[in-house]
């Protein structure tokens, strides 16, 4: 079942096209990666999906129904432009944001305390937000986003400003959500985080959907049909379409009909000594850069 679906969504700001006929679906329980260069239209798409902005054309459905306030209460959003009331105390701020998500006062206070402990900030609950470091403030915002246990959570660049320990904490939180069947939309420029966390991804460029699908399929689709072989045997002498790189490994282009596994078998059958063997899989970084530059990898 799709949790969030955009069908033919377009949006203009004055004469500028922000989104052009974008259609995609976010499935239940998955971590969905939303990628794109700065100004591509990601934030506009997110805002439309959360009813902060209205689309000029197209339809948006959430939890299989229309975008209404009841449905939106089941969502949460961590915007890229972080916002907090800096003069408020940490617990007061979280309690307030929980109340805005429909939690009862007592439940909101309890969830605030629980989540502050979860992100390691229980000790600063009574401090003002402006007394916290940037990373701590970011964790307060993440706690605010997750405290209502939203069925759909949209995190825009959740790792920015965090140290490696806290990056690991946020990754754990996202993975925990997936384990209990909660859906997360992750918008980030950190491609290694996309590779590590996301089930499916969409890449938006200049307001248009450029790539959309399962992460492994996309990486496969944009991977060269090549393998890297570490072998003392001279593969060129064997007549293979290979080149030797600076590390001494052979980069071999496979025939179109051949699979990586089948090719390994064939090498061994022909008596080639194989120390190490690795199919070439495109990195998301490369796919991203090449697609944005307008050329396939």
């Amino acid at each position, binding site marked *: 079942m799709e949790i969030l679906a955009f069908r033919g969504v377009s949006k203009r700001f004055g004469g500028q096209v922000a989104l052009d006929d974008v259609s995609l679906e976010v499935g239940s329980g998955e971590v969905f990666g939303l990628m794109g260069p700065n100004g591509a239209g990601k934030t506009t798409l997110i805002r439309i999906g959360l009813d*902060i902005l209205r689309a000029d054309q197209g339809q948006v459905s959430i939890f299989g129904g229309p975008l209404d306030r009841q449905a939106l209460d089941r969502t949460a959003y961590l915007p890229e432009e972080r916002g907090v009331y800096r003069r408020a105390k940490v617990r007061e701020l979280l309690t307030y944001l929980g109340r805005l998500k429909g939690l009862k006062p007592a439940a909101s206070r309890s969830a605030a305390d629980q989540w502050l402990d979860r992100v390691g900030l229980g000790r600063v609950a009574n401090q003002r937000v402006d007394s916290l470091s940037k990373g701590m403030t970011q964790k307060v915002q993440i706690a605010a986003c997750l405290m209502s246990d939203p069925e759909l959570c949209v995190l825009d660049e959740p790792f920015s400003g965090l140290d490696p320990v806290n990056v690991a904490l946020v990754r754990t939180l996202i993975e925990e959500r997936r384990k209990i069947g909660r859906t997360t939309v992750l918008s980030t420029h950190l491609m290694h985080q996309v590779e590590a966390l996301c089930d499916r991804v969409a890449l938006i460029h200049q307001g248009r959907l450029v790539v959309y699908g399962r992460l492994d399929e996309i990486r496969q689709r944009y991977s060269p049909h090549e393998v890297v072989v570490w072998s003392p045997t001279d593969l060129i002498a064997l007549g293979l379409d290979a080149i030797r790189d600076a590390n001494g490994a052979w980069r071999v282009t496979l025939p179109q009909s051949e699979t990586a596994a089948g090719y390994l078998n064939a090498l061994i059958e022909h008596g080639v000594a194989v120390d190490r063997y690795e199919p070439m899989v495109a990195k998301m970084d490369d796919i991203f850069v090449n697609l944005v530059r307008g050329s396939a990898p």
Partner: protein
Amino acid sequence: MIRPDRVTAVAKFEFLAVVKRWSYLLATFGLPLFLAGVSGVVLGAQTYFLAQRAVESSSFGLVDEAGVVDSSVFEASDSLPTWRVNAIDVVLYGSTTDAQRDLQGGKVRALYVVPPDYLETGRVQAIQSEDTPLLSMRGTTVEPMLRSLLQRSLLVDRLEDDVQARVLSPASFVRTRLTPAGDEVKSVDETIDLLVRTTIPLFLGVLLLTALLSASGYLVQTVATDKESKIVEVLLSSATPEEILAGKLIGLGAAGLIQFAVWSSMVVLVAASASAALAAFVSIPWTAVALAPLLFVLGYLFMGSLMLATAALGANAAESQKFTVGWAILAMLPLMVMVVLLDDPNGVLGQLMTWTPFTAPLTVILRLAVDPDGIAWWEVGGSVAVLVFSIGVAIRVGARLFRVGFLLTGSRPSLAELWRQAR
């Protein structure tokens, strides 16, 4: 549909955020105390100096070279005849030389010489010593006294007593006012009447306007804070613009109402403490006082909605303030034409402003305070109805502009875009 729990959450948060600020506490409780303190010091100082002056003996010399002064008012005191009125002594000298000697010796503050040709010229010579400040001499009541003495002196034995009295005091105006009942007439002192007719309405009007602008100022500030702290998207992903706008209006309105109540209470306290002295003369415009909270709330909701919407169009606090100045000026219009309203509260201008939502709260208060019987009940009711209707429109349009403006960063929407959103 507006959800009450979200509105309550926003209202409570905004209310607490404002009332816990030092600036609010200072303005609400400190300002009246400060004003009361300053007034007390000023009044105390004035009273002290007046009392000091009252015990001072002020002597002036008079030389009658023309022989016209009625000397019967002068009583023998020590050596020279003296006329004592209102703690002022006028000493009648037989010669200018003696008088000038006493002036130089500091026994008299000034010397008045009625020259031989007085009847032809009407001139009286006023001589002061180098030590006597000119203003100090003029500030006394001696010259009116001497003028009155000369008038009386010239009339003595020339006219009958009653005619003489009327020449000296031709008319004493006794002011009365005819009530709508037509039969009840009460005496009104001219000075007190002026006080009642101007000071109290002006004070009430300024109080209402200050409270309105103060509460609206908090609204502008909170929108600017939301935009500058970039929490807007988080708020809008949880609550509708209408809910946020309503919550802010209620929360900050409550803070403003408390401020208004505290200020008003101070005024009531001062009035109560002065009531013993003023009760005989001053009639408090109770209808205006009773309606003031309702008019404050209505005026605040109307102006507040517009201010929130326009403040949201600003990129920062300074710009938001700039955008909302226009509304504040519109609200101040009744004070700007105060003279006209005081002179003719029920005239065309007064009636026009009663039916205009921007000016209605202040105008109704002023009209009720100046002339409670001159404004019809249907005018007050109609003005309230106009305000209620305008509030509905302002909240509706305001919430839409609020959404557009709230998310605005960088470029500003065109007027056409704003109009499209507001419809």
